[in-house]
């Protein structure tokens, strides 16, 4: 079992032992027709089949589980996954009689430790689970609800319809946990506004791919759609229009929808560059540029020499640190010199910071524990080596800029990235906490986000979840083709990998 990153990330007792036994290499015995994505750490299946009937199957809590019907995260998930599994067929009650010894009637869920039903997921959340598929009762065991969510997704992927339309699952035994704790998708709602519905759809698809971080690049030069309670003028004047705004209620909706899927919402308020839209609603915040001796009428980054700047930023970030429950705030800092003052300010708010790599490149000195996100394609392995040598945790994005498009099967190149393929000690490698697929918004809005993101981001999803030995491109192609059809069936307009078809074509 690999453990990544932060010192306090510890896999609690029991499951760690199980996982350690099972980990090593992924084994797919009696491979059959398995379409799992991402592939689990350990998977054993037998040719023995069990059948499910939509009218006679349910999810339930084990009597010994620490979570029960009052756990919203699980109750909501049960309902969702029932839908995903039985889909169009759930109303067909007249099921052919299944001999009871061949029927799978229940998935019994057991949470071993404090379930964290009402918490937000965090970087240290335990997502491990074990899944035993057998009749009449299958079992899903996890330390926390977050592992249950991942296990439910896997369970739903194990069930298929045989040629007579019967819902079928092979007897299986799965032990699973993520390779990296930070598996993110970056969306950009400044270059183009994304309606809340589109963001929620993206969260659905993320859960299908076991992503657990929505990196919300919420504002930038072009527009300021975040409606601030302390500074309402920022979005009043800086948004594209008053209907292109995320109200506090919208933000809460996104955060809760994400939480129910075990996904963290990481807000990014990029400064001091990329802030043109801030200037419209906040006088004197930006630096007036000069042409010869006269102000040219244009503005540069945030003006660092005024006291008003600091009181403004401090108040704004105080609000942000309350609105967004995650431990981390992304402070941006790309493509311009960064002011370390902001980092200090964030730490006084009991939050931790993530910054783009330039902040490290330019400053070198950062508060310990600051996470650095590597995005420059150049020699990103060298950059990983340097940053981890300096002791900072890193997030990898450089090879995963999905807004950059090409003709053909570029998912193969995302899939083949080896995140730890840099020179460094085992301790350095531990500092790679994960990665993010970024879909920047210059040429992307609600019209093309979904097909451009999926299933290309799925390739990143498996790279960050599955053991590093899972690299077979042919097998990945086979599984991913089916996984994309599964996403289409669940209402995600995931585009094709290549020539072929899905039983249920998307009608978008």
């Amino acid at each position, binding site marked *: 079992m690999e453990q990544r990153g932060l010192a306090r990330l510890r896999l609690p007792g029991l499951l760690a032992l199980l996982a350690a036994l099972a980990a090593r290499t992924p084994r797919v015995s009696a491979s059959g027709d398995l379409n799992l994505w991402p592939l689990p750490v350990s998977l054993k299946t037998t040719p023995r089949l069990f059948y499910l009937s939509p009218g006679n199957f349910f999810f339930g809590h084990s009597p010994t589980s620490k979570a029960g019907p009052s756990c919203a995260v699980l109750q909501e998930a049960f309902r969702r996954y029932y839908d995903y599994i039985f889909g169009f067929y759930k109303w067909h009650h007249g099921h052919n009689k299944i001999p009871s010894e061949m029927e799978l009637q229940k998935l019994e869920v057991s949470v071993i430790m404090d379930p964290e039903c009402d918490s937000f997921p965090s970087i240290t959340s335990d997502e491990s689970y074990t899944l035993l598929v057998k009749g009449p009762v299958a079992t899903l065991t996890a330390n926390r609800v977050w592992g249950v969510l991942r296990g439910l997704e896997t369970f739903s992927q194990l069930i298929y319809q045989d040629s007579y339309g019967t819902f079928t699952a092979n007897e299986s035994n799965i032990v699973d946990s993520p390779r990296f704790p930070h598996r993110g998708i970056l969306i950009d709602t400044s270059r183009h506004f994304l309606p809340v519905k589109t963001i929620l759809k993206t969260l659905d698809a993320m859960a299908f791919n076991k992503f657990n971080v929505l990196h919300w690049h919420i504002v930038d030069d072009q527009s300021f759609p975040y409606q601030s309670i302390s500074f309402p003028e920022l979005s009043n004047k800086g948004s594209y229009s008053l209907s292109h705004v995320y109200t506090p209620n919208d933000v809460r909706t996104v955060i809760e929808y994400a939480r129910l899927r075990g996904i963290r919402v990481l807000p990014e308020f990029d400064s001091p560059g990329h802030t043109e839209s801030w200037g419209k609603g906040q006088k004197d915040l930006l630096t007036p540029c000069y042409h010869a001796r006269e102000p040219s009428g244009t503005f540069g980054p945030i003006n660092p020499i005024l006291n008003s700047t600091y009181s403004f930023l401090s108040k704004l970030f105080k609000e942000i640190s309350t609105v967004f429950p995650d431990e981390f705030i992304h402070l941006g800092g790309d493509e311009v010199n960064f002011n370390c003052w902001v980092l200090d300010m964030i730490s006084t708010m009991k939050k931790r910071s993530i910054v783009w790599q330039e902040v490290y490149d330019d400053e070198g000195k950062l508060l310990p524990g600051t996470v650095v996100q590597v995005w420059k394609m150049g020699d990103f392995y060298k950059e990983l080596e340097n940053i981890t040598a300096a002791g900072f945790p890193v997030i990898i994005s450089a090879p995963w800029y999905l807004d950059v498009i090409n003709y053909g099967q570029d998912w193969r190149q995302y899939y083949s990235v080896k995140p730890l393929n840099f020179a460094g000690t085992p301790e350095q490698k531990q500092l790679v906490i994960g990665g993010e697929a970024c879909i920047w918004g210059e040429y992307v809005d609600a019209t*093309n986000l979904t097909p451009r993101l999926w299933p290309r981001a799925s390739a990143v999803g498996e790279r960050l979840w599955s053991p590093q030995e899972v690299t077979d491109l042919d097998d990945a192609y086979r599984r991913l083709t089916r996984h994309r059809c599964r996403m289409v069936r669940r209402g995600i307009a995931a585009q094709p990998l290549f020539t072929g078809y899905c039983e249920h074509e998307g009608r*978008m």
Partner: protein
Amino acid sequence: MAGSTLRFSLLLAAAFAGRATALWPWPQYIQTSELRYTIFPQSFQFQYHLSSAAQVGCSVLDEAFQRYRDLLFGSVAFRFPHPIEKRHTSEKNSLVVLVVTPGCDQFPSLGSVENYTLTINDEQSLLLSETVWGALRGLETFSQLIWRSPEGTFYVNKTDIEDFPRFPHRGLLLDTSRHYLPLASILDTLDVMAYNKFNVFHWHLVDDSSFPYESFTFPELTKKGSYNPATHIYTAQDVKEVIEYARLRGIRVLAEFDTPGHTLSWGPGVPGLLTPCYSGSHPSGTFGPVNPALNNTYEFMSTFFLEISTVFPDFYLHLGGDEVDFTCWKSNPDIQAFMKKKGFGDDFKKLESFYIQTLLDIVSAYGKGYVVWQEVFDNKVKVRPDTIIQVWREEIPVKYVKELALVTRAGFRALLSAPWYLNHITYGPDWKEIYLVEPLAFEGSPEQKALVIGGEACMWGEYVDSTNLVPRLWPRAGAVAERLWSNKMVSNLDFAFKRLAHFRCELLRRGVQAQPLSVGYCDMEFEQT
């Protein structure tokens, strides 16, 4: 010539002044003024002029009036205005349509006249056209002239437009073989084509990957060659619906049945049709192109294309003829024997020619004309002089500009597609490159240039299905549409960007999932369902 250039650019400048000038594609001649008329949705009507050859009962225009009412005003119901209600000169209550020649029940053709004039002034509000097809183009333009104030009032400015297409063949190719496209995707595409004044839907129905066209003479073709014979097919009813839906929008359906290559999906349904490939002295179990050495092949083609000629009303059929791989033919002893018998030596191009010539004779006998891919010309197949050659290769055997010169010098009509393969994608605003293509920028006489009848934007299906078709197609295909419709001199990128960005927002408003050109927003964004 110089004089007309000057007049033209002055018009462009004048056009910038008004706000109702975000037209796409840009008309040949336009004059607008700041003077505007109010339109009240409840009382606005499309009407036939008393002396129009088309009157109520003309399916093409009746339906179009309904469509454009819905597009403009949504579900606002029409109420007959009270007879004594005062008419203000600043109001427009109707657009009067006058069509000169009857022909509401015909199909559009390569020779259809699409000219129209649109006159909106104090005295009249008139759309005048030779044919119903021209009226359709004019209605689209009219719909783009109407704008809405922030308070929600509809206006149209005083405008004079005289318009006609630069090229008569303005096509869009969809590939329903690499991926099946649901019928609704095709119909939706026809709508957006009409918004862009495209007039040919080139339907690449079948290919190696699947055979979704349900043939009534050879039902085994779909039964064995489609992805799923129950769901992934186009029934006779579907095909009829596409043809009629297209006709109502002034769009021709050019059906392509590509042979002798690109036919793997035909094989399972018609035993013996494809060439068995050999490995050494034994059949390898794989198949190559259509077997040109058997009489059965030609009998099959005769029957099959008789059906196709009947089902598709357009004068033209597309017979393909591209990318024939000779390896399999070379390996097969029966083919080798046939070559010897015919005296073709080792020249498999002669064999290909033999096949294609026989096929063209078959199709000609059914009274059809045909379009073929450029290889047929490159390989010197003897074809009828009225054959249309579609140029699709960018560099090989020569640059496409040169290829156009060669094709037209040989006296054939040409269609350009090479620079417009929209399935090819790159980061950034690639519509600019697409837009700046000048189809007649080759060396040749005026007679040669006149032989270029237009072009087609192609959306091949290897990586495209209904999940990503629409945003990948629009508004990029719009760049091709304007190049084929508007005057050659309309080529300024800033002017185009402004209008195209506006047009893509209009497409969103009309429910089309058209992707953005650059950063920014639309008042009405695309809403996920």
